[in-house]
């Protein structure tokens, strides 16, 4: 339903998105995960036809965004980072306006407005001015305008950012309820969000895709292999054997050799902190322990940034 190929976007000399490719199948919810400044908004803006890429192609529902922008845009609903509301219009007037410019046939407009207002739980706000809505309601009206023309594809840019815990839970339920009828791409900088809502995750950092998998597989991959780097003064002994004998250690590999010093990469079983036992085993065997530090893969570092959420843990998991 969505095909993105080698998308690159440069702002002057700065590359915001760098060779991003991914596909989304019909009916799927894809999470676009990355820290602030990763290039999520830029990618979504290209995907929705707001701006052209510097290089690469994007196709939505079979239409190329650059060759047939109008046809493609008919099939996309988009909720930007800030809901694009006109403060001087009532919710109903606003949704009617969006229905008109999205090409909903005149006879269906009023009905569609009513349907989406009920679907997003804003039916009682029809006569309220958009400028007077709370943050939570603004977001819901933003979702309502995104689905007003019943698009094949929904692109939602950080749909839960800035909401309170209760609103986050409601918004996630709403998004999941939309999944049946629409193919959804949503972005977030909060890790637990994707595991709650998405079937597949693309992780993006500094404009590049660094991983792509199901939320479960990604979590497993990360929690799986914790590794530790140790540097030992190993003169006159087999430090490798000592390390391999420590309970919980799965593999030991020589990482570097500097004169009398040898660096080892020690991998352990999932969720097991072996640093203390490594230190006492080496010292106990009479080796000089020069350095001991946890090794972090770049993916893990990104994940650490992602897990620091501004939302309490129990809410993030709800």
């Amino acid at each position, binding site marked *: 339903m969505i095909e993105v190929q080698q998308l690159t976007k440069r702002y002057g000399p700065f590359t915001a998105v760098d060779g991003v490719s991914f596909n989304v199948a019909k009916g799927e919810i894809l999470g676009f995960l990355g820290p602030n400044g990763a290039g999520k908004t830029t990618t979504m803006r290209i995907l929705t036809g707001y701006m052209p890429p510097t290089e690469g192609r994007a196709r939505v529902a079979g239409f190329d965004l650059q060759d047939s922008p*109008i046809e493609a*845009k008919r099939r996309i609903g988009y909720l930007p980072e800030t809901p694009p509301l006109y403060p001087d219009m009532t919710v109903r007037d606003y949704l009617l306006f969006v229905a008109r410019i999205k090409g909903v046939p005149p006879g269906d407009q009023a009905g569609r407005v009513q349907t989406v207002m009920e679907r997003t739980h804003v039916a009682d706000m029809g006569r309220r001015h958009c400028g007077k809505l709370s943050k939570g309601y603004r977001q819901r009206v933003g979702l309502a305008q995104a689905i007003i023309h019943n698009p094949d594809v929904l692109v939602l840019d950080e749909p839960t950012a800035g909401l309170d815990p209760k609103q986050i839970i409601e918004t996630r339920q709403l998004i999941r309820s939309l999944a049946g009828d629409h193919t959804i791409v949503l972005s977030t900088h909060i890790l637990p969000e994707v595991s709650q809502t998405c079937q597949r995750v693309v992780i993006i950092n500094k404009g590049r895709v660094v991983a792509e998998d199901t939320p479960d597989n990604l979590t497993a991959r990360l929690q799986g292999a914790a590794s530790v780097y140790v540097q030992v003064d190993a003169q006159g002994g087999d430090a490798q054997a000592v390390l391999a004998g420590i309970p919980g250690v799965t593999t030991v590999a020589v990482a570097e050799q500097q004169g009398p010093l040898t660096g080892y990469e020690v991998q352990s079983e999932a969720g097991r902190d072996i640093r203390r036992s490594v230190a006492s085993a080496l010292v106990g065997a009479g080796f000089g322990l020069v350095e001991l530090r946890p090794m972090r893969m770049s993916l893990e570092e990104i994940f650490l940034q992602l897990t620091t959420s501004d939302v309490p843990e129990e809410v993030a998991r709800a």
Partner: protein
Amino acid sequence: MRNTLAIARRELHAYFSSPIAYIMVGLFALLFGWMFYSFLSFFSEQSLRMSQFGMAGPQALNVNEMLIRPLLLQAGIIILIFVPTLTMRTFAEEKRSGTIELLLTSPLTDWEIVLGKFLGAVGLYAVMLLLSSLNLVWLFVYGDPELAPVVTGFVGLLLLGAGFIAIGLFLSNLTRNQIVAGLLTYAALLMLLLVSWVGESAGPVGKAIVSALSVFQHFEDFSKGVVDTQHVIYYLSVITFGLFLTARSVDADRWRG
């Protein structure tokens, strides 16, 4: 067309849901009315004086020449103050609030967006003119002026204002600050006014350039009751050029990101 009308309708909605439209329409009607009555009292004084010298009847002063024409010429100048307030919001505010993202990701062409905004502003401007023209009804009730110059005069005012609006739309798309957009438009229109004044003392080449730039000069004939296609084409070109620049600048923003 349906898309263009949807945009135009929203523009009118925006004007009339804030005090702006009412203030503009009211203020213009007030200014126009005030100018009208001061010209009128001057005119009746003059005709009274002339009738005292026994020159009534066919020799009476011409209402069109002495009253309506100068009134329309002056109105042409004061719309210069009004147009920037009509156009300054159009694009600048959409950019500031982010609603431009809705328009540019909807299945609309740039021209539909630009034309829609243009029609919205021209619509409000037409309401301004229409209300002000009610003042002139008095003349037709109590006197016997020619209708043609009045109608062509208002057609001229409409074209002149529409040209200004097209320029204002373009300048509004250059910034996300509507005050800046308003001031830019005000400065640009003022320059066009100055050019037509300066032009009177310019050489032949200067005159040609000035005549192309002087949007006011082309307005004069309309107030005389003459619709010269040359002037109509002139205004239509100004409008087209302004809208063309606006559409180009909407597209250029895309690439800038």
